[in-house]
């Protein structure tokens, strides 16, 4: 029977296919005495080891190439004679096959892990083999990514970074998770790789291997055992979307022609080419942390200038918004602040840390101004804007913009990530040339929920009307003072939320380059009046989930998609 589950869709995609579940890691076996006797336990252990080795060899033969070598090596580990001796020792002491396998593998694992480096990494291969053998003994599916031998819809509780690294993107049709929100690893991966995903789906635990589902990210829905009609409609939408993705790239604009420049979030100059090819009209957030992370001391002006020159030269004639160093909280830097803080997110971070080490800020501004001049001297200049992170007060705004202008920076602005600066946006924008709203931090500070803490992850949703009200304050101040208000952060990459943000007064959107096509299509389907109407619907809701639902109901395109 057809059944529909709801969750948070990532992007606008739709896909269909058979489910393969990611099995959960197995708990360690108990060291209980065997009730079966040594001979039977030995036979069980031998059979399980041999079955796992054959299975790994078969998978290797099917995979070929480098994967075959790894899988064959794992098969040999399973049947390793030294390991067999260790297992037999334990079995002869009256242990169960499960415990003997677990403990014997663990002893080898420790030897390898202690050697570190490449050999230490092989410990993970060994763990995988041990889990497979124990799963076989228990008659349960082996943990980890499934390998059904055909393309599949991956259903998991949530994906860890290690899992996402191993995903075969040619095989995974869509992702469905029962946990995790819009900023989970699964969601980030889905956005980066343009995989259709619905996360935080309640009821996903009950989905069974082999059943067909339609995964509709635009509708935030998973349809289980869909009708032939459902499948056909999904296929039609997938085709239409593929056609839209290959549609000519036009500058970001609403249906009525109102321009909304679509910009890229970049962390390195190397990403420039890809961003331009995906239609980025400039850079809305260039993070400079990469120059500083893993450095014991600040990079020199020369090193910085070189990196900024490469970036600016890649965007001649286009806007490039550079954020000065944003250290602290999730990205601590020893040379800026090595004091232990109880609440680093509320501590000496962002502009506060730079102010405490003003030479670092002055050097960065020097390098930026020099890079700008050098690019200008060799052809058309880029339109360089520079902004400060974590600005909380008008006084900080005055400090930063004055200092930036002292170094010849033409356009100096601030990031709005703290509710205080959103509420006083009209005073802040009287001094700053522009504001850029960092929705991830703004959500964290509005909801008083640590972004990095899984137990409060459900609070980290930029759709929350409290966050949207703050965005409205900034948008209104921007309109009143004629100052641009950009959005950078995960929120701008959500195609419907992007419409809401424009309705609230955002004048440009910056996101991971892979999100550009979906957001461009979504904007083109709404007029400015539509966008305001959708934004009002979201603002009137009580919480994030109902804001999303209300916005969908108010949007002409999403109403259609839901029918």
């Amino acid at each position, binding site marked *: 029977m057809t059944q529909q589950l709801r969750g948070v869709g990532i992007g606008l995609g739709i896909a269909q296919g058979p489910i393969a579940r990611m099995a959960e890691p197995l708990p360690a076996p108990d060291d209980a005495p065997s009730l079966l006797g040594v001979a039977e336990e030995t036979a069980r252990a031998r059979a399980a080891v041999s079955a796992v080795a054959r299975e790994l060899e078969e998978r290797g033969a099917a995979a070929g190439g480098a994967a075959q*070598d*790894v899988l*064959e*090596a794992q098969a*040999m*580990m399973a049947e*390793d*004679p*030294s*390991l067999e001796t260790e297992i037999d020792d334990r079995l002869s002491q009256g242990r169960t096959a499960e415990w003997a396998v677990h403990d014997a593998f663990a002893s*080898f694992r420790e*030897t*390898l892990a202690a*050697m570190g480096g*490449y*050999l230490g990494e*092989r410990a993970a291969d*060994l763990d995988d083999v041990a889990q497979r053998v124990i799963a076989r003994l228990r008659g349960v599916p082996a943990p980890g990514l499934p390998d059904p031998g055909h393309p599949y819809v991956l259903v998991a509780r949530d994906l860890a970074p290690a899992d996402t690294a191993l995903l075969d993107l040619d095989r995974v049709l869509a992702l469905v998770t029962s946990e995790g929100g819009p900023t989970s690893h699964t969601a980030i991966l889905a956005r980066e790789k343009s995989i259709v995903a619905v996360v935080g789906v309640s009821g996903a635990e009950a989905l069974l291997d082999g059943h067909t589902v339609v995964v509709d990210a635009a509708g935030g829905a998973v349809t289980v055992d869909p009708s032939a009609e459902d499948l056909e409609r999904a296929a039609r939408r997938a085709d239409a979307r593929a056609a839209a993705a290959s549609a000519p790239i036009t500058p970001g604009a609403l249906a009525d022609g109102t321009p909304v420049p679509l910009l890229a979030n970049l962390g390195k100059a190397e990403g420039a080419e890809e961003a331009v090819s995906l239609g980025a009209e400039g850079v809305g957030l260039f993070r400079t942390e990469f120059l500083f992370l893993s450095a014991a001391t600040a990079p020199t002006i020369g090193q910085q200038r070189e990196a900024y020159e490469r970036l600016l030269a890649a965007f001649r004639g286009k806007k490039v918004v550079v954020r000065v160093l944003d250290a602290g909280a999730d990205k601590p830097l020893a040379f800026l602040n090595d004091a232990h803080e109880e609440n680093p997110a509320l501590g000496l971070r962002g502009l506060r840390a730079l102010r405490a080490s003003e030479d670092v800020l002055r050097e960065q501004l020097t390098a930026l101004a020099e890079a700008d001049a050098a690019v200008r001297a060799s052809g058309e200049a880029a339109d360089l804007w520079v902004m400060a992170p974590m600005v909380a007060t008008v006084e900080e705004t005055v400090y930063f913009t004055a200092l930036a202008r002292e170094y010849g920076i033409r356009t100096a602005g601030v990031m709005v990530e703290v509710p205080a600066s959103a509420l006083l946006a009209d005073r802040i924008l009287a001094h700053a040339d522009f504001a850029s709203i960092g929705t991830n931090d703004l959500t964290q500070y509005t909801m008083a929920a640590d972004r990095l803490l899984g137990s409060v992850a459900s609070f980290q949703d930029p759709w929350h009307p409290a966050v949207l009200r703050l965005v409205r304050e900034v948008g209104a101040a921007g309109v009143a003072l004629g100052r641009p208000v950009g959005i950078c952060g995960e929120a701008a990459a959500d195609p419907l939320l992007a419409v809401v943000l424009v309705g609230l007064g955002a004048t440009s959107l910056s996101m991971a380059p892979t999100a550009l096509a979906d957001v461009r299509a979504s904007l083109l389907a709404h007029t400015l009046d539509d966008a305001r109407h959708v934004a009002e619907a979201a603002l009137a809701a009580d919480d994030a989930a109902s804001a999303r639902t209300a916005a969908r109901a108010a949007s002409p395109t999403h109403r259609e998609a839901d029918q």
Partner: protein
Amino acid sequence: MTASTRTVRIGSAHGLHARPAKLFAQAAKDAGMPVTIAKDAGAPTNAASILGVIALGIDQGDYVTLTADGDDAERVLDTLSELLATDHDA
């Protein structure tokens, strides 16, 4: 007794780690007689044990001593020595 011993210098750029370790342990297993491998003056390990071979942490240029015990020991050592002296990662 027909036990034979030979000392070989490792040719693989990545030592006896991933793929070369697998190829070597597989060949030792297929030899049909007990074969041991020792690094420098260390204790001999069952050469058919991929885990034992990996755990020796053998790098390119290291010297290892192989011992085979069986009727055809010399031929087995020829095969295994050639395997070890070859750079499989080239």
